[in-house]
């Protein structure tokens, strides 16, 4: 380093280096969509014999997939977020893991990272605390203009959700408009400055500021579109698009406007009255909190800013996943073989700070596994009283389950006891298929046709996985998939991948950022 700043602690750890990007708090996310991989079921039963049509095993429940969006600066796909899982279920053996992190180019809402979390079925969704380098954040101007010290979060519509909703700026005016039914009419709305009774649009501000809008409607709004036209702090004409969906709420523009020229409303809802209150932030760029420390690299990009809550770590380590979720799928003596994971690997980390129910962890999932189970049955019999017909059948059922590696933080029980991150697996998908062979003959045919037994030889030797691989593919093609890719979820025979590889985990505390 020839210039800049580097700060170390007495362990020689580098805490701040102006040459490198530090991760800062970028928002607290709740999920926008919840889905599950549907079970892949295709049961073919013989005309007689074992005709049970049971579907998936009771112990084969796929976990919930929770999806989150983190909006970022356009094109900032080089910097995936560090998404810490803050579990909302701290009792029981609930595992969760980040199974996908994909950058999405969205020309309407803006670019975002789509983050999927797999969690064991039917528990409260975790909250994600996300961190980004400053240069990847949605807002260039991180200085909070609204009296708090947090950067604004964004919901799935790209609406700003400031941490501090107590507006501290100046309210200019309020007005109500009646919007038509099922039209795309553009509505103009003029606000007036009450003191001078002059129109405020277009309105010039002394400093570039973020616009503030409060709204309330007589019915729930469905994607009411609000276009705000103006000139931003760089002197560029800008149109900022916002959608609102609730009956009431507030939002702030992402742009810092120094002139507001027009506000347009486009509505497709039934006719109703919407009341708006308009204002602007009390502070503008650079007029936020003046206390703190910032660093810049040689390109004059900000790499650290104490006002944006830099990432603090209270513990770290490496985790691997066990070889298999359980040593084998439970017995198939019934139609409910047990696929519930029972192999765990514990990793300890001594924490510098902790508070039970406040901890969160970051460790993307890379491991996955497959377990399978087969049930074979065969038999014979006859039907008909006077001229009986004899039959033989063989049936084979095949279950498989596909897992992804997931984790949980064990409850802290004492100050001396190190925290434990436990690796295991959660079920992502799976299925159950069954096929059979069957033949029947009259009494004389049964006596004279040796082929009667030979036909069943196919099954008495086992249908075998090769046949079921094909069967699974056919089922998948006909199956509906809700928000996940169609697939067999059966990539290989019983085994696992990526399980022996160290994956770094980091632990922090949610309360640092609330």
């Amino acid at each position: 380093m020839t210039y800049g700043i580097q700060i170390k602690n007495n362990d020689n750890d580098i805490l701040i280096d102006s040459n490198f990007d530090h991760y800062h708090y970028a928002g607290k996310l709740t999920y926008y969509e919840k889905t599950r991989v549907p079970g892949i079921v295709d049961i073919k039963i013989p005309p007689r014999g074992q005709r049970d049509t049971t579907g998936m095993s009771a112990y084969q429940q796929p976990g919930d997939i929770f999806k989150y969006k983190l909006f970022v600066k356009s094109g900032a796909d080089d910097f995936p977020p560090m998404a810490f899982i803050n579990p909302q279920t701290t009792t029981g053996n609930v595992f969760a893991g980040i199974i996908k992190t994909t950058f999405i180019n969205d020309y309407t809402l803006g670019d975002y990272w789509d983050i999927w979390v797999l969690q064991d079925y039917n528990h409260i969704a975790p909250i994600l605390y996300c961190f980004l380098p400053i240069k990847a954040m949605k807002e260039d101007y991180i200085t909070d203009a609204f009296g708090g010290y947090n950067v604004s979060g964004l919901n799935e519509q790209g609406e700003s959700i400031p941490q501090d909703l107590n507006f501290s700026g100046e309210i200019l005016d309020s007005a109500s408009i009646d919007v038509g039914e099922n039209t795309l009419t553009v509505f103009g709305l003029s606000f007036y400055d009450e003191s001078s009774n002059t129109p405020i649009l277009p309105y010039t501000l002394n400093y570039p500021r973020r616009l503030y809008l409060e709204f309330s409607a007589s019915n729930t709004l469905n994607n009411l579109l609000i276009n705000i036209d103006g000139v931003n702090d760089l002197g560029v004409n800008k149109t900022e698009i916002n959608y609102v969906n609730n009956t009431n709420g507030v939002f702030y523009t992402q742009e810092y406007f120094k002139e507001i020229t027009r506000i347009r409303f486009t509505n497709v809802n039934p006719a109703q009255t919407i009341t708006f209150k308009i204002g602007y932030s009390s502070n503008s760029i650079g007029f936020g909190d003046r206390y703190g420390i910032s660093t810049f690299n040689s390109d004059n990009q900000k790499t650290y800013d104490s006002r944006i809550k830099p990432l603090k770590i209270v513990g770290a380590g490496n985790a691997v996943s066990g070889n298999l979720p359980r040593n084998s799928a439970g017995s198939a003596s019934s139609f409910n073989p047990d696929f519930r994971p029972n192999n765990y690997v514990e990793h300890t980390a001594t924490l510098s700070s902790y508070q039970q129910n406040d901890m969160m962890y970051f460790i993307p999932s890379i491991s996955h596994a497959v377990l399978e189970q087969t049930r074979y049955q065969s038999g014979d019999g006859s039907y008909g009283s006077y001229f009986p017909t004899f039959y033989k059948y063989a049936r084979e059922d095949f279950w498989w389950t596909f897992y992804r590696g997931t984790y949980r933080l064990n409850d802290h029980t004492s100050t001396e006891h190190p925290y434990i991150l436990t690796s295991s697996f959660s079920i992502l998908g799976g299925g159950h298929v069954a096929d059979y062979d069957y033949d029947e003959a009259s009494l004389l045919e049964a006596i004279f046709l040796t082929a009667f037994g030979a036909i069943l030889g196919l099954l008495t030797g086992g249908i075998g996985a090769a046949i079921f691989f094909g069967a699974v593919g056919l089922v998948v093609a006909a199956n509906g998939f809700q928000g996940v890719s169609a697939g067999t979820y059966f990539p290989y025979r019983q085994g696992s991948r990526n399980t022996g590889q160290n994956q770094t985990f980091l632990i922090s505390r949610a309360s640092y950022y609330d």
Partner: protein
Amino acid sequence: MAYGFEVRDSGNNLMFSSEDSTFTLLGTYLAPANTTVSFVGVPTMPTRIFTRHMIAETNGDNEAYVHTVTLNNNILTATAPSSTDTFDTFIMVFGK
């Protein structure tokens, strides 16, 4: 705190101090599917860690290996375990 530094906001809330632990981003690297690749110029710090993201969805039609990673001085080598079934792997290197 007898020595070190603290950074506070205007409300006197402690934002960061030399008693905190953290990691700084040293670099991000995308290892392409089914390819072994080396990246040079990885910055060094006394302690370095890396983590990997799967950036594609696993639907069970692919064995979905991730790259194994070794970090030696300023060279990061991402090795594809399979020439046909290794996914794109996003690697993040942190230091302190």
